[in-house]
């Protein structure tokens, strides 16, 4: 026990979050602070450039710091300055929403944000908005177009010469998607060929292939698993009845049934977040809610793609063996690699046309 506690010691702490930080870390912080101070401007000089009262500005700023240090409550702060600010800033002050006062969670709603011209909201919504505008721009610029529109077709290329078989991707995937025991969206298969001394070993990482013609989608009786325009095959956990037909239909064994098992006590919050891959928290798994009783699989970290990030396995890959991108974009790496002579798909004769390509 004590050993494991000791092992916990050198964990990085949040600067200034607790009083009894070790000396070292404080020195460390100071050096950064100095760097910041060099860049800092004199508030008095800056404020005098404006038409508003300098002394009020300074006073408010100082108290604002006290608020952030926790020495003053936000409510008390606004009680103190509300009237002054109203007289000083007039209509501008009254019409601008004040998240600290108006809303419990200190945010402003989307509509207001829009009127103020600032992008706020969850990362996902920002990325989606960005993507939408980019796509719109793309569509405009691509007047001739290879044409079927705005959506990318997400594809992955895995270079087998670069893969060292470390399984980092498997681990990253488990961490990212919080998959329970028995469910592993990604695995790395090993194949040894030849006889000594001419032996070769190939590691074949296997996510879901996001097939262009997915048999799993074809067989599902309730359309709970479906193909999206961007190439990703998704599962609707609220509709899936758990018949497991898709599992026997998948030629890559890429699907896993969630039997409801948990990593009990193996790490903090094990079994807390239940389906981060769709950006949903369905509460503790113990209650047996979906996705327990459903079939699960890799979806190219759709939640990450949505906010402009690569899938966790791609990002983490030690050998840089994985590439992610739009297969339809002729400028993309994946497009180029997927059409190289080294490229192949698993079980091509099945006719599933995977969106995961491998390089021999």
């Amino acid at each position, binding site marked *: 026990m004590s050993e494991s506690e000791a092992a916990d010691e050198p964990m990085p702490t949040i600067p200034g979050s607790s009083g009894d930080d070790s000396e070292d870390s404080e020195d460390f912080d100071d050096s950064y602070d100095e760097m910041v101070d060099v860049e800092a401007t004199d508030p008095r000089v800056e404020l005098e450039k404006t038409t508003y009262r300098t002394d009020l500005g300074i006073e408010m700023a100082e108290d604002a710091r006290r608020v952030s240090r926790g020495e003053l409550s936000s409510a008390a702060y606004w009680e103190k300055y509300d009237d002054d600010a109203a007289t000083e800033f007039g209509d501008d002050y009254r019409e601008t929403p004040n998240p600290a006062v108006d809303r419990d969670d200190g945010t402003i709603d989307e509509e207001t944000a829009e009127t103020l011209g600032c992008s706020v909201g969850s990362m996902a919504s920002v990325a989606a908005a960005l993507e939408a505008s980019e796509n719109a721009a793309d569509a405009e610029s691509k007047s001739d177009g290879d044409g079927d529109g705005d959506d990318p077709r997400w594809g992955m290329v895995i270079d087998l010469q670069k893969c060292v078989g470390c399984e980092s991707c498997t681990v990253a995937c488990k961490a990212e998607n919080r998959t329970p025991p028995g469910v592993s969206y990604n695995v790395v298969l090993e194949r040894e060929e030849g006889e000594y001394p001419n032996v070769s070993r190939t590691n074949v990482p296997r996510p879901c292939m996001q097939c262009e013609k997915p048999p799993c989608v074809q*067989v599902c009786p309730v359309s709970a698993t479906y193909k999206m325009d961007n190439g990703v095959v998704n599962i609707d956990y609220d509709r899936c009845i758990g018949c497991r037909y898709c599992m*026997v239909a998948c030629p890559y064994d890429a*699907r896993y049934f969630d039997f409801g098992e948990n990593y009990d006590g193996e790490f903090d919050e094990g079994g807390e977040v239940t389906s981060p891959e769709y950006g949903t928290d369905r509460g503790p798994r113990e209650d047996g809610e979906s996705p327990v009783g459903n079939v699960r699989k890799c979806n190219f970290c759709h939640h990450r793609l949505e906010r402009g990030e690569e899938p966790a396995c791609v990002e983490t890959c030690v050998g840089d063996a994985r590439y992610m991108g739009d297969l339809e974009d002729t400028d993309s790496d994946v497009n180029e690699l997927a059409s190289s002579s080294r490229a192949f798909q698993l079980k091509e004769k099945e006719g599933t046309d995977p969106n995961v390509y491998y390089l021999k």
Partner: protein
Amino acid sequence: MSTNTHETTAAIGGRRLRFAWYVLLVALLAIGGYGGYLRLAEGLRATNLSSTVPWGAWVAFYIYFVGLSAGAFLVSTLSNVFEVDGMHEIEREALFVAIVSMIVALTFVLVDLGRMDRLWHPFAWRQPLSVLSWEVHAYALYIIVLSGELYFSMRRDLVARSEADDGLRGRIAGLLTLGRTETSEESLETDRTWLKRLGMVGIPLAIVFVHGGTGNLFAVAAARSYWFSALFPVIFITSAVVSGMALIALLYVLRARLGSRALDTDLLERMAALFVGFVVLDASLKVLEAFVGIYSLHPGHVESWLTIMTGEMWWSFWVVMVGLGWIAPLVLLHRRDWRRRPALVAAAGASVVLGVIGTRFNIVVPAQIEPALYGLPTGYYVPSTPEWLLSLGIVALGVLIYTIGTELLPLVPRGEIHD
């Protein structure tokens, strides 16, 4: 008369037997109930299923009972559609067995679902490319057709019984007539016409959709080469007919022995001969299928066959499927005079009813053992105790429904009862 005393003792013996029978069924239901409790409490963790072998005993039993139903139904059409002599005697029994089998089959489907609470989803959301989606609807339609047929077949006797009997049976019979109490020759003719019409709808429904379709469920799964063959649905149908005939023959003999119904030896022989014919057909098709598969040297086929013949459950192939399903009935019924002996026909029937269970297991499980990709774990599956217990309970439930049905419904045509 001397027959009177004979019948009285038979009745007393019968009553005791009946009591024992119900006690047995309730005991089995209780055992099954415990299995059901484990299933509910632990979810599918109570099974030995895994992501490698996602379909197991309950799916095997499901297709087994669908097959039994389709087979029993086809036996019933021998009477009402093809008008084979003397088959009228067993028509209703066959229809009723078909209905009960479907109930049992769908109960197995229910307990097998990962989310039982969503049983209704296939009716709310469809997927025109999914065989399973079509199957679910075919099953529903099939049960309606079967019930309709049974109704038209029984109506005359229901009316008669409701008039003659003031007790529970009479009242139930009265309700089941659905208010059509006329028994004029004309109305009976209408019944017969509709019976035949429904039978004709039912035949393609049972063959193509209900059972051929269940075979298709597997055959279209191209990922499992062992299933991926056009002969597969055909074999599904032949073994369905075999199991259905076996069960009807068995029940016919049993009910004649236990009740006071006379046994028609000619009918028995006809059933037995037909039955043997289908066993031979079924076995030959399976041998052909196996030959093509193994000859291909395709690993999916070869591995599956090796698993079937030498794997953990080898006995379910050699002893149950081949021994009980093929060899036993052929030995027991190969001589003409043996086919006229009720005990032998019943034994052959019982043996095949069990044997086809082996066939079904050997369809479902082995194809999933061989991993889809080199390097993935090899599957392993034998049913867990809760799986067996619950299966036992569900079968007992079916038998109970059947028994109660035989007591309350006029399943034996009147006029052919000997009293």
